[in-house]
């Protein structure tokens, strides 16, 4: 069903491109996806979604490529820059070096890098305040928990995910200072993002140890966590995209990281000639980070919980609550 829908989107956008192709001087965007590719159902998918949206809404020319290895980033970035592409978007922290190097060689082109900071006059860096959203879902989890024990399953053990963890624990403690958080990581290599079996194994053992809600920023590995939630009749919290629909009734909410919005916004700025360089941060304040409420989970979250969550969100935005940031800790 979903696939059909995606195909539909694909054809429509192809059609739009064919029609639009006749028009001269369209805005050309090159999108370079990480090794995961456009179908990783998470990070790269989100970026691809945002770009495809821009293609149909803004009538841009979009060309996407998927990297074969780390050394291909620079080649691909440079290829785009050498052609008549106006905006080149690199997805993921591994592309930082390539963007940095190529942007310096092509000062007239515009570049966007997601999840990493590159300071250059023609580069916009899109960063997300994952800790804020994590704090929020941590608070919601603590409010909903019966057992007073929560779980956290990270994908690969890297600072980014530590940032999620720290925010999540702080949010939970804010509601219930005595809350206990069990924390595990799927692995230490790239495979950790795509190991649902290990994710499920960890989730089952966390549920067994008393946790009743697990937050799982673990890429595709969190599909295993959702499986375990359904099996054990407990809750899980999704991440990045809205994952509530995957196991309706077992996914309390999803922490949203709107890479698609950010990418779309960057393209829109470019099309309208309003592209600015520098670092853009996306947090709760500008809806770059959020939590998801939809038809799948509105019955799970009581009005009281939602009201409290909104209150905490407002306090974070207003600066009344300081969310600890793993990046600033060290």
């Amino acid at each position, binding site marked *: 069903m979903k696939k059909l829908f995606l195909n539909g989107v694909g054809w429509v956008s192809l059609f739009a491109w064919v029609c639009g192709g006749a028009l001269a001087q369209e805005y050309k965007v090159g999108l370079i996806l990480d090794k995961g*590719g456009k179908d990783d159902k998470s990070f790269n998918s989100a970026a691809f979604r945002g770009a495809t949206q821009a293609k149909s809404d803004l009538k841009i020319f979009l*060309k996407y*490529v*998927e*990297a*074969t*290895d*780390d*050394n*291909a980033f*620079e*080649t*691909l970035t*440079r*290829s*785009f820059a050498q052609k008549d592409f106006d905006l080149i978007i690199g997805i993921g*922290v*591994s592309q930082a070096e390539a963007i940095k*190097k190529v942007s310096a*060689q092509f000062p007239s082109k515009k570049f966007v890098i997601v*999840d*990493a900071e590159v300071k250059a006059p023609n580069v916009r860096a899109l960063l997300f305040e994952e800790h804020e959203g994590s704090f929020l879902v941590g608070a919601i989890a603590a409010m909903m928990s019966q057992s007073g024990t929560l779980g956290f399953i990270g994908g*690969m*053990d*890297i*600072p*980014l995910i530590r940032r999620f963890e720290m925010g999540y624990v702080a949010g939970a403690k804010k509601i219930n200072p005595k809350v206990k958080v069990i924390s595990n990581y799927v692995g*230490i*290599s*790239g495979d950790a993002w795509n190991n649902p079996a290990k994710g499920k194994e960890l989730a089952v053992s966390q549920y067994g140890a008393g946790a009743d809600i697990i937050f799982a920023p673990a890429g595709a590995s969190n599909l295993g966590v959702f499986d375990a939630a359904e099996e054990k009749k407990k809750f899980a919290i999704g991440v990045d995209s809205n994952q509530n629909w995957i196991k309706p009734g077992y996914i309390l909410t999803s922490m949203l990281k709107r890479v698609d919005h950010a990418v779309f916004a960057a393209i829109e700025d470019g099309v309208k000639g309003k592209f600015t360089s520098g670092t853009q941060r996306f947090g709760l304040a500008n809806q770059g980070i959020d939590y998801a409420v939809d038809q799948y989970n509105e019955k799970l979250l009581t009005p009281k919980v939602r009201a409290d969550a909104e209150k905490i969100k407002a306090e974070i935005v207003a600066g009344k609550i300081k969310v600890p940031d793993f990046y600033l800790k*060290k």
Partner: protein
Amino acid sequence: MRDSVWKILRFLRPLIAVSAGLAAGLLVTALAGENPLHVLAILGRSAFGSRYDFGMTLFYATPLIFTGLSVALAFHAGLFNIGAEGQLTLGALAAATVGICFPGVPAVIAPFLAGLAAFAAGALWGAIPGWLRARRGSHEVINTIMMNFIAVGLSSWVTLYLLKNPDSQNPETQAVAPSYLIKHLDFFGDAPLSIALFVALAAVVAIWIFLSKSTRGFELRSVGQSEGAARAAGISVGRMQILAMALAGGLAGLVGVSEVLGNATRFKVGFSPEYGFMGIAVALLGRSRPLGVLGAALLFGALHKGTADLDMETENITRDLSLILQGLVILSVAADGLWAWLDRRRSP
């Protein structure tokens, strides 16, 4: 008359295999709606279009020369080294480790030191399955695959817990001291090609001399030709198997020189787009001859480079489709068995 035609055909066999694979691949791209001639033109331009492009081709070919030689050398001793991937991982890790832990080494000897470490680590990683084969009789195919897994785990652990780059999200080590970096070949512009290419070329020559001229190389080949005959001739079969696997591992380990000292300046987890496994195809296509390996590595380097460009330059060819193209070439090389069979029917 027919015999001489046959001889020429046999000589051209690898070329025919490659062409057949390429033709099949182009047919697939045609089915996907691309003009095959256009695809071929892109591939050609991608590989040799500019100094930069050719530099990238050579950059990808360099590690493939090392791994291709590695697999070929093991073939000569009658062994199948599927472990080049693990050996090169360990080699690169060793080069990075030395470069990080001994920053004070003067630039005159630093690259040699790190290169030696890369060779030694790869050699160790090859010698272990070699030893297991020689002394315990357990098959090297299984053991080298296992060693690949251990190499991934070990290198990730060292990277993340001992030598982690604190400034990066990526699973990578800190940079090696500048004295370790080898010279970049500026002729090829921004292509990350370094003098590691010359190390690879030297390895081709060295392995050729070793196999065809040296006494030890003769003994190693004898073991591969006939273990029974080698044993009866007083050659220690086990020792030759260990030597072959150690040398094979060391060659694969030298990928660390091109990757760490010549390109990334650090060890990155997962840096290799499976150079080790592509090395098997390279060795097969090169018929395990050092010069053949060199040619095959260039071809595969060009194909790998072309993969990214096809994705970029065409509407319908994605990364996956160009991998199919690569796969078809490898497949038709492997189907060489058919030729061997035809050949057997012709001679006693």
